[in-house]
């Protein structure tokens, strides 16, 4: 929701516009942003666990496959709603962005 071109509705003044269609789209975008945040956290946690070496090769393979499918599913969901991964973010001002760029 950084208001990038083609992204969620940001008015001329940087305000959100309350057009019903756009509100729906913004809501989808917000939900997907949260899902994406969780996905990235899971990915990070998985890497961390694998690095620590307390996961068997078989488990690692399973975790990796799951995350890969989840990643693909995110792409599909974004495509369905006409969003890109770049749209799934929140600008937190001086704190930077919610998701890493």
């Amino acid at each position, binding site marked *: 929701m950084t208001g990038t071109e083609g992204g969620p509705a940001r008015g001329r003044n940087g305000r959100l516009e309350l057009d019903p269609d756009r509100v729906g789209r913004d809501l989808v975008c917000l939900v997907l942003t949260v899902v994406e945040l969780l996905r990235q956290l899971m990915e990070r946690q998985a890497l961390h666990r694998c690095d620590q070496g307390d996961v068997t*090769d078989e488990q690692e393979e399973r975790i990796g496959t799951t995350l890969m499918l989840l990643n693909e599913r995110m792409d599909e969901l974004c495509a369905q709603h006409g969003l890109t991964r770049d749209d799934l973010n929140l600008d937190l001002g001086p704190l930077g962005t919610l998701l*890493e760029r």
Partner: protein
Amino acid sequence: MTRTVEQPGPRQPLRTETSAAVATYVFAVCRGGDPAAVAGLPGQAPGTPVRLLRFGSLEAVVQDVPAAEFDAENLRERLADRAELERCARAHHSVIAAMAGSAPTLPLPLATLYLGDERARVALRADERRFLAVLKRITGRVEWGVKVYARPEAKQEPDRSAEAAGAPGSGAPGSGAAGSGARSGRAYLERVRGARQDRERRQQAGLAAAEAVDRALRGIAVASRRLRTHETTLTGERGVQLLNAAYLVAEGDEHDVAAAVREVRRSPACRSVEVEVTGPWVPYSFVDGSFVDGGEPDARG
């Protein structure tokens, strides 16, 4: 220490009331200014002259503006509109820049308003000592703005690389799209890890480059100030802004600035960034009373 501020913007409370028909808009404070330098400018209210108002040993660059258009509510509304904000800021700046060409000039924040000349004079007089101190600091000096951006092409979306991991780690790329069972989860994790490490490296390199640029310019500056970096929505097609800084440099040292920037651009640390330099400006970032040379906040206030 550096401080983060947003500028330009109304930093002082707006001293307005709706009753008076005419308010006094103050652009700047100067010493020995030439009225002719700003006489013909439109300012914030085209039609009324931009003039000098004496107070103590200094002058204020002022203009009569319709009070109704500049009351707190209207002003808030107008400055929230990006196009209108730009128009006001440009008008403000053009008066300040014109006066700075004729005399040492201390710019005041956008939308500094008083209810008439008398009130303006009283308020400005109360600040005279601070104005004198700041004028002393900025006389004969100019501000240079330096921004550092990560090069967009150097920045690759981690998810894109992870996406590419959908292809099998070995074998022909693309064939993985046919059946997910053939793809390796471990290879995917490996790619995600690689992308993460790349990004961390890039971030480190970007920050190191920003520090290198800042160091080089601090070397020739009288004072420096790190400003808040702009959001990506404002920087448009450019990459992420890594540094937004202002340097107070002696007038006539343009060559030193240019040389420092040229050198730092050539350095290996700055390969992945773009360095943008603007100036010379009237020292907007160094008129705050809380700053002394070296950029340290002034404890004496």
